[in-house]
């Protein structure tokens, strides 16, 4: 048995940690590249959303490398993400690739548990007692690594707009993340995190700058994965903007476990409440939160909002229609970037540069 999982931001680091710690053989798909995307595009059609194509590409590459068991996070209605597995299974089968599939249910319902039982029945035979005993420890390791990655990324977002040498933060962040990736035990992980922190903080910074404040909102895959959004977060940072986002793995995992109501959730609840002025119902996925966050950020004095969505994404299309009005009503510039497989990195760079310049003028005028 060789387990594999899709790429999504830094997910490979902690998925790997879970598998490694509990002694389950795994294959990390090659880093998402042009080839990955081409494979995904070839085997789907033009109106299917970009995350679908990226994930499909990851799976194809991993299966070709010898993986045989796919682990995928499930989701529920109303967005298309919940039916990715139904369609991807048929596509892989049609391509003649052999695989087994394990869905991690988004919510613990009886149906999900039953399904999970069915899916794992065969797999369990291949796992040793050692694997199963070590699994909780693996989960703990994975969780810690995830939190470490997020802490480092958040720090990098703060450092980037003040860096003296352009691109240095990104290099240091990469190094820090690979340090986390290489840690084997909880103690070394802690050291790696500390080292990574100092590494980032030691970046040459110009503290006299007052960076623009920009919030990234939108569909969670496009917000979290730099391959899908062509590094919008990094680009904005290097153009001199301090970026915030509220989509992190921990937010979404805690949300589906319905835990941590006081902290992360309350922010989401605040956004949701704010969106009610424009939307009378929960449209699903991140739609309401995109709108609510834009409103709240404007109240908090942010300079601008960047809204990311894949082409033809159902909930976010509604959001983008409403956001044009939100921008006018709350006097906050909103840039919507619609992403698909086209080679648009250069265009995004130009758009972001223009957006930043506009924000700077606006700030001077005020």
């Amino acid at each position, binding site marked *: 048995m060789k387990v594999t999982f899709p790429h999504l931001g830094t997910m490979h680091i902690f998925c790997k940690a879970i598998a490694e710690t509990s002694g389950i053989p795994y294959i990390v798909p090659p880093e998402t590249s042009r080839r990955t995307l081409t494979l995904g595009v070839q085997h789907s059609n033009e109106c299917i959303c970009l995350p679908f194509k990226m994930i499909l590409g990851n799976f194809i590459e991993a299966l070709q490398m010898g993986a045989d068991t796919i682990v995928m996070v499930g989701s529920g209605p*109303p967005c298309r993400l919940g039916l990715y597995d139904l*369609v991807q299974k*048929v596509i892989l089968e049609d391509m003649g690739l052999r695989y087994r599939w394990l869905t991690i249910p988004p919510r613990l319902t009886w149906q999900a548990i039953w399904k999970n039982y069915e899916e794992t029945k065969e797999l369990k035979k291949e796992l040793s007692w050692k694997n199963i005993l070590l699994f909780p420890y693996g989960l703990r390791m994975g969780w810690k690594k995830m939190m470490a990655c997020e802490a480092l990324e958040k720090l990098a977002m703060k450092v980037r707009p003040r860096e003296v040498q352009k691109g240095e933060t990104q290099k240091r962040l990469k190094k820090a993340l690979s340090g986390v990736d290489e840690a084997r035990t909880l103690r070394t992980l802690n050291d790696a995190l500390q080292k990574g922190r100092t590494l980032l903080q030691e970046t040459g910074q110009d503290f006299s700058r007052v960076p623009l404040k920009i919030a990234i909102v939108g569909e969670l895959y496009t917000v979290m994965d730099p391959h899908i959004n062509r590094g919008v977060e990094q680009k904005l940072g290097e153009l001199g903007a301090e970026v915030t986002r509220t989509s992190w793995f921990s937010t979404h995992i805690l949300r589906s476990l319905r835990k941590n109501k006081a902290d992360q959730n309350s922010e989401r609840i605040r956004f949701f409440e704010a969106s009610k002025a424009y939307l009378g119902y929960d*449209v*699903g996925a991140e739609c309401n939160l995109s709108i609510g966050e834009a409103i709240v950020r404007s109240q908090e004095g942010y300079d601008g909002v960047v809204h990311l969505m894949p082409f*033809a994404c159902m909930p976010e299309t509604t959001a983008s229609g409403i956001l044009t*009005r939100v921008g006018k009503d709350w006097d906050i510039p909103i840039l919507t970037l619609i992403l698909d497989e086209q080679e648009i990195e250069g265009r995004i760079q130009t758009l972001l540069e223009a957006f930043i310049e506009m924000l700077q003028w606006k700030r001077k005028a005020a």
Partner: protein
Amino acid sequence: MEEKGRIGIPRALMFYRYFPLWKVFFEELGWRVIVSDGLGKRGKIIYFEDSCLPMKLLVTHSIGLKDKVDHLFVPRLVSLHRDYIMCPKFRGAPDIVRLATEGTVSILDETVDLRTREHSMLRSFLKTGKRLGADEKEGKRAFQKAEQFFLNFQKGWEDRINQLPLKQVFHLETPALPKSEEKPFQVAFIGHPYNLFDTDVNKDILSFARSLGMRIITPDGLSEKEIGAQVSDLSKEIYWSSGREIVGSLFHFLSGRVDGVVFLTSFKCGIDALLQEFIRRRLKLKGGTSIPLLVLSLDEHSGREGLTTRLEAFRDVMEESTH
């Protein structure tokens, strides 16, 4: 009965299934129902948001109606099935219309969610009635009458779309003619009702199909059981009611006694895009089908000529395979 005022119903989306129900309900309560005109040949679409064509048409029709009516009826259709839901865009539709009309008209946007008791069709209509000043008894009576009319209307549906000019299908006063001559081809047309019956979306392709000698069969006549039989063995349940109906009826017809199947989809329809891929692959894995299948993707740029050419070719294929 004196007229209380006017209610505007945009000719878009689920209008193409529920219009008879809506119309009779409001008329029973003493309101006059005004329906937007079709786009026509030179009609302009208003691009308020970057959605699929049927959604853009909802905005266009609503804006066309807003000055002529007292209330605009754009219900929030979350679910029209006991277990399954509608496309997420329907949930935000009244809000989009409200922004596009800039709050100049009152919008009746009660939620319909058949998964819950609280938002059942009856409850939702009672609430709408209440907003129009009708008490519960009046509302109930009007709804029962509307429902009865709607059920009768649906029974004659297939005759209507095969006999009447398509522009008149929703003229409720015009009775459908009895079945006339036998057509050489029985063709199933599958898709969302607003793709199938909105002549602005499909460029009146059904009329052309009829003139080519096709008798049109729609999934409306299929029972829940027949659809369920085709989709119950999937590895995951399709949770959109329309998507489920499309996949179920498509496989039902492809294994049945029709001469051909045509699947009409809108460009940028998320559900159709995903399921189209699924249908194509699954058919291939099952070893194909002997019944011809045509998938037509529609948007505001599709020309009638392109569609008619493909439909003519499709007829030729059907002719070949029946001989």
